[in-house]
């Protein structure tokens, strides 16, 4: 009986002790896990909120991926934690749970583990159902665990911190077994040693001491875990430029960290009470902040509010504030904890970005040219209205096509090659004239200029093409080409006609020189025979008549010669060379020796730059002009012939001036005409062809000739030589 009583008593005492210890250990573990889960959840949420606001639009995968990658990066650097403790972040995929990563003492795993069995991963399911708390349940492996779970609504994910239950109660089970065994032994021994009453008391004291030691160790581990978490939190706040604050509702004292003070322009060691701090907030935003705060205190929901503040330096800033209440054991709100971020720059950047986007969108849509964004694979990503109109497609029809599919077959290869080089980054842009295929199958000539947009890391994103309708220009060019061809054909025909005419003229000239001369020879020849053979029989009057006949015939011969010379000039090819004009003038003077020998002629020859012209014909010009000067100064004492050159508007003007008979400027227009004479033959001989020849030669050289004169005051002939190489 006593034995039963003793065993029972021992067992009850042991069980009770173990039960108390177990609950204590469980509670400690539960607190630590809750702390871990909450702090990590809050941290991740804070990062997520920050990223949602500030991650650039083009970050691949968006803010969610950015957050995830940051967290993953952060965790991969840390080695946790208590043996068996594991942290996991997961999300729902349909009915299944997908772990984004798990994190235990061996490190972090990002295996994307998917748990289908609804009986498994119970804590994570609870977190993903939006609940927060602790439980004992089955984890994804089916192991019974003590777990704290928290939802992170910002990311639609949940976080679970857990330890296998075996880790919690393992030592206690062992202790319980030992205690049970001890109870049996004690009961047996007690029969033999009832008198030694102290023994069981000593045993109990020893057991208590062991249990106390175990509990103390666990507390220390929990404290270490807390310190680690605090440091992780601090690092994260620092990395995210996040300030933190605490408002004790019971004392109404608000404390801010150095970063939060810095957002307001306050020094890190500044002291400011709640009212001081609230004075920084823009009056219009204060009410909103207060309402959000009060509601959060009342409902327990985290509040988030963006407020404008005026910094101590007078600058305006925008702070994003969020916070959450803290409850005491009785469930009363005793404090608000929160973070703050300076989002002034991000806000401004975002506004600028939005403005620029709006501007761009309006340009894109209203442009008078076609604009298309094309993927690196050639698909239309975005097209504007003008481009659709050009091609006759609807935007959604183009979205199903590549740009090559609406390009004329003959232009595809060229365009594709250039586009490939553009995507490869070999060229920054290219322009191409090509034909697009309209929906109705017709071709449209366009000028397309394409450039390429890349992500910061060089990943090709899309090309921007500006497409201009150049069909009108193409039609005009086609017309010009056709007209040119027509013109060339006409020129060819006309040239052939001219060549034929020239040949005819040559034949005519030949005929004139040969046949027209024959009768003249006869007239002159027989007159001469008469004069020679019948000199004695003829009177002096007869002889004078015969002489007149001969003179007339000879004069006609000269006319024919001059006329032929003139007609030959039109056909003769010019051979321009540079030569010394003065030397040529000296030669001409020597040739005119016979006419000038018995005359008093003063030649005044000035500076003469070298001339580039056809030597043979230019010599004819100088000969005719100088011979004219010699002829028309006949009777002058002395005759003065001045030859020189001057520069006028970058052109060399040559001139020949005499003090001879001159002419009346009223007849200047006849001066260079064929057979036009301004003097009677009995005053000055001549055929009226010399100046016509001069005129023609000068004009053929691209030059100009003109004269100034007054009767009896001499004459000046001016001429220029153009560029005769053309």
């Amino acid at each position: 009986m006593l034995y039963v009583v003793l065993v029972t008593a021992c067992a009850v005492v042991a069980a009770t002790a173990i039960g108390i210890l177990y609950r204590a250990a469980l509670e400690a573990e539960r607190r630590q896990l809750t702390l871990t889960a909450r702090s990590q959840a809050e941290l991740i949420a804070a990062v997520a909120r920050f990223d949602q606001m500030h991650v650039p639009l083009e970050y691949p995968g968006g803010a969610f991926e950015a957050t995830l990658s940051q967290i993953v990066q952060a965790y991969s650097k840390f080695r946790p934690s208590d043996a068996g403790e594991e942290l996991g972040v997961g999300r729902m995929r349909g009915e299944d749970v997908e772990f984004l990563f798990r994190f235990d003492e061996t490190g972090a795993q990002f295996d994307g583990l998917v748990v289908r069995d609804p009986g498994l991963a119970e804590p994570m399911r609870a977190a993903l159902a939006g609940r927060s708390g602790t439980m004992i349940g089955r984890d994804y492996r089916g192991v019974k665990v003590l777990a704290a779970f928290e939802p992170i609504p910002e990311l639609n994910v949940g976080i679970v911190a857990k330890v296998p239950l075996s880790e919690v109660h393992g030592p206690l089970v062992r202790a319980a077994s030992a205690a049970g065994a001890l109870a049996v032994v004690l009961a047996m021994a007690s029969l033999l040693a009832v008198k030694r009453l102290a023994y069981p008391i000593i045993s109990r004291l020893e057991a208590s001491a062991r249990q106390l030691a175990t509990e103390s160790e666990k507390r220390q581990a929990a404290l270490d875990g807390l310190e680690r978490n605090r440091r992780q939190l601090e690092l994260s706040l620092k990395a995210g430029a996040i300030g933190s604050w605490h408002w004790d509702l019971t004392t109404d004292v608000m404390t801010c960290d150095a970063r939060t003070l810095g957002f307001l322009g306050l020094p890190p060691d500044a002291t400011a009470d709640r009212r001081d701090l609230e004075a920084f907030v823009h009056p219009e935003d204060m009410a909103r902040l207060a309402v959000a705060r009060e509601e959060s205190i009342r409902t327990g929901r985290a509040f988030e509010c963006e407020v404008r503040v005026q910094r101590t330096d007078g600058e305006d800033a925008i702070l994003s504030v969020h916070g959450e209440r803290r409850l005491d054991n009785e469930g009363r709100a005793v404090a608000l904890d929160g973070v703050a971020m300076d989002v002034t720059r991000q806000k401004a950047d975002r506004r600028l970005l939005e403005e620029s986007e709006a501007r761009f969108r309006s340009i894109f849509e209203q442009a008078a040219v076609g604009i298309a964004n094309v993927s690196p694979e050639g698909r239309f990503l975005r097209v504007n209205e003008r481009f659709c109109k050009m091609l006759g497609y609807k935007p959604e029809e183009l979205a199903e096509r590549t740009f090559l599919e609406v390009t004329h077959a003959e232009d595809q290869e060229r365009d594709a090659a250039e586009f490939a080089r553009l995507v490869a980054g070999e060229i920054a842009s290219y322009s191409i004239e090509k034909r697009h295929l309209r929906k109705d199958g017709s071709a449209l000539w366009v000028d397309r200029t394409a450039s390429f947009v890349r992500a910061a890391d060089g990943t090709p994103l899309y090309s921007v093409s500006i497409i201009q309708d150049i069909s009108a220009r193409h039609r005009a060019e086609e017309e010009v080409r056709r007209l040119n061809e027509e013109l060339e054909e006409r020129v060819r025909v006309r040239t052939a006609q001219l060549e034929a005419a020239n040949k005819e003229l040559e034949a005519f000239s030949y005929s004139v020189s040969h046949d027209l001369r024959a009768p003249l020879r006869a007239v002159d020849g027989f007159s001469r025979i008469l004069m020679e053979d019948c000199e004695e029989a003829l009177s002096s009057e007869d002889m004078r008549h015969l002489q007149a006949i001969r003179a007339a015939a000879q004069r006609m011969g000269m006319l024919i010669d001059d006329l032929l010379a003139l007609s030959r000039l039109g056909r003769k090819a010019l051979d321009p060379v540079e030569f010394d004009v003065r030397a040529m003038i000296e030669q001409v003077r020597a040739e005119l020796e016979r006419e000038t020998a018995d005359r008093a002629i003063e030649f005044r020859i000035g500076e003469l730059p070298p001339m580039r012209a056809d030597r043979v014909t230019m010599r004819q010009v100088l000969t005719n002009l100088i011979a004219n000067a010699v002829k028309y100064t006949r009777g002058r004492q002395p005759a003065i012939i001045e030859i020189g050159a001057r520069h006028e508007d970058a052109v060399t003007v040559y001139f020949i001036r005499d003090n001879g008979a001159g002419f009346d400027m009223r007849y200047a227009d006849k001066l260079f005409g064929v057979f036009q004479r301004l003097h009677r033959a009995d005053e000055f001989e001549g055929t009226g062809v010399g100046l016509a020849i001069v005129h023609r030669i000068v004009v053929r050289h691209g030059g100009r000739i003109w004269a100034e004169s007054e009767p009896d005051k001499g004459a000046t002939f001016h001429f220029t030589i153009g560029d005769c190489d053309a």
Partner: protein
Amino acid sequence: MPDDGDIEILLVEDNPDDVELTLHALKRYKLANRIDVVRDGEEALDYLFGRGAYSRRDLSRRPRVVLLDLKLPKVDGLEVLKAMKADPATRSIPVVMLTSSREERDVVASYKLGVNSFIVKPVDFEQFVDAVRQMGYYWLLLNHPPVE
């Protein structure tokens, strides 16, 4: 007295005025005792090669010089010249071309057919002497001094 049968000059000229003026000029100075005249290119060829109307002519009696007008009916002067220069029997007979202008002379010279000299019509004494002098045929003048 020169041999009656010896032809001194063959004048090839179609224009009768020019023929008369030429003969007048040459005979007045007693330059040639015997001048044969033919009136076109074909006749000139017949004469030179003993064909047609001249088939019975003694070809060994060659003219000492041919005055050849450039422009002739039927066969023109250039063709006559070509035929003469192509035949060894006539190649060495000196030819003086008669032209109506210096331009024609340039045309003929461009054919490089071995013309010995040129005279621009009308043929007068001075030009003829010049031409003969150019050819170096003084004997034509010296062997036959003008006969009073």
